């Protein structure tokens, strides 16, 4: 079993300077994602959501911090573990929850479910179920941005498990060769399903794959949402200004099983507990307290999030069932 330390990077220098104003919206997003995931887990256990459900609980700081470094018209491409990324990109809890329920009012009308969130207006290019297959897609969006010269950047999220598959290797090679404005973000949560790092990677540092391509790289802990934002912002700026891609590895941890059907027997309780103690969500809340955000304000924010998620569940529960699928096979 890999020790959590093994994958950790050296704690770096000073903590990132923060203000309440900057941190508060990020905390709100992280909290909303946590509550949304908890609500979907509950609905899943009640049989209201089906299929595969992969929760991102524990990793919220990565998608929230990274997406905060974007312009609204930038692109995000994600895996099947896509709820957090979608929310961070501005997709509503209502549309997401209704999708999970398979309702007509869902984000993609009940056609995609948990793994396939898409929103063209928000620049959210999925929600992909085949590991690694979306890496070239993100490079393709970046290709189009460069082609049109519109200054957009694409962020592509994937797990460390994806770093062994051809889609990743080929996407990386082409992004480097053609200098595409894409930031490839490996959310290294240290397990690919039940497989710990040491049984899937000969070198347990995914960011080093950039070296062979002469590509910029970065690697850091994903506990601090502001740090994620600042470090990803550097890569985003590099992409926007120079079309240079970056491979970024963020060390993180998922608190739940791979999906709802995974009891997670391959990790010790102690290991999971240790990571829960450093929960990025709690950490952000503590930081806000330290920065002097009044308790009443925090509670108001939390009540607001609770209401938002309850409203989303109610919306999903009371929406009509999905009812059409033929119109979307071929565009006429």
């Amino acid at each position, binding site marked *: 079993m890999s020790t959590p330390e093994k994958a950790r990077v050296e704690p770096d220098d000073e903590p990132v300077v923060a203000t309440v104003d900057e941190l508060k919206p990020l905390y709100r997003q992280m909290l909303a994602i946590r509550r949304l995931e908890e609500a979907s887990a509950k609905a899943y256990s009640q049989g209201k959501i*089906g*299929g*595969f459900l992969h929760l991102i609980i524990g990793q919220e700081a990565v998608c929230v911090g990274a997406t905060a470094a974007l312009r609204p018209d930038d692109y995000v491409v994600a895996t099947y573990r896509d709820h957090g990324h979608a929310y961070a990109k501005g997709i509503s809890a209502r549309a997401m929850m209704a*999708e999970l329920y*398979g*309702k007509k009012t869902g984000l993609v009308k*009940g*056609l*995609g*479910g948990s*793994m*396939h969130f898409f929103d063209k207006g928000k620049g959210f290019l999925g929600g*992909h*179920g*085949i*590991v*690694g*297959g979306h890496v070239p897609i993100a490079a393709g969006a970046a290709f189009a941005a460069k082609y049109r010269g519109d200054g957009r950047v694409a962020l592509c999220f994937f797990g460390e*498990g*994806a770093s*062994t*598959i*051809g*889609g990743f290797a080929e996407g990386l090679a082409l992004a480097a060769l053609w200098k595409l404005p894409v930031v490839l973000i490996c959310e290294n949560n240290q397990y*690919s*399903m*039940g*497989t710990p790092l040491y*049984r*899937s*990677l000969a070198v347990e540092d995914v960011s080093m794959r950039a070296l062979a391509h002469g590509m910029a790289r970065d690697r850091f802990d994903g506990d601090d949402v502001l740090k994620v934002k600042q470090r990803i912002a550097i890569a985003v700026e590099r992409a926007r200004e120079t079309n240079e891609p970056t491979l970024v590895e963020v060390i993180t941890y998922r608190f739940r099983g791979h999906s709802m059907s995974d009891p997670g027997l*391959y990790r010790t309780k102690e290991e999971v507990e240790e990571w829960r103690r450093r929960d990025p969500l709690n950490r952000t809340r503590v930081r806000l307290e330290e920065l002097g955000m009044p308790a009443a304000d925090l509670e108001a924010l939390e009540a607001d999030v609770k209401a938002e998620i309850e409203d989303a569940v109610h919306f999903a529960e009371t929406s009509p*069932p*999905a*009812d059409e*699928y*033929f119109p979307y*096979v071929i565009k006429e």
Partner: protein
Amino acid sequence: MAVISYREALNQAMREEMERDESVFIMGEEVGHYQGAYKVTQGLLQRFSSRRVVDTPIAEMGFAGIGVGAAMVGLRPIIEFMTFNFSLVAIDQIVSNAAKMYQMSAGAFHVPIVFRGPSGPAVQVASQHSQALESFYAHVPGLKVVLPSTAYDAKGLLKTAIRDDNPVVFMEGETLYGTTWEVPEQEYLIPLGKGDIKRPGKDVTLVAWSKMVWVCLDAAKALAAEGIEAEVVDPRTLRPLDTEIICDSVKKTGRCVIVEVGWPVAGFGAEVAYQVQRQCMDHLDAPIERVCSDDVPMPYAKNLEDEVQPQVKDVVAAVKRALYLA
């Protein structure tokens, strides 16, 4: 006879063949420590060690190719795809390499390999994870394609597939793992290319494989209540195809309904229909009917997913059309 699950039957087949032949090994994602994503390889790592039960990273193209290379020089790999949807990432190794090697090398190299794993739509896993890909593989000369519907067939066919000297694409029903059937204690093998009558009947022939056999058995029950006796023919392997058992049945009943969970266009049922009309023209009393999934990627919502796939009522309706009762 013991009644065991389809999952257990597959597990027994691999266990027995690994006991029998040291050159057989299993390779795939989560097959060892995790005991299989669908628990088909449960206990095998403990029994045979990580030398013969090999966990892989997510690299289907890579480990399928490693299987082909190892098979060329004398091992007998069982390559597990977590589901056959992911075999698409490896299809070049299966189609361009495994299937071609024997002919390309004028018989110098044969490739005794089994590519196995769950296939066909499961429940609410949406378009990228809900595909019936047997027609893709059945198209390719050099491959054998097997789709067992029962625990009994699963065990006997997998043992034969492992002993076969050719690449075998062995597609298990993702929703069938928990189904049970009588399986003898003593060893048995089922030849590839021999179909099976799952239910005798005189009025109409239903041809189906994998999960659709179960749908047809239910449809046959419903039809029997109306006095219509359907014969359910399960070819069990699509390549080679037992056209004889299908045509013998159609010659008896004069009517044929082919039921598959795949898409209609260029689906394997079209090949079956061609063979039947070619060989049974004078015996057919009605046009051959096909029941397939709708011609769409699979939607997620449960109600739509059920609508897309062939249901008992669709089979019953097709039978009635074939009997001019509709």
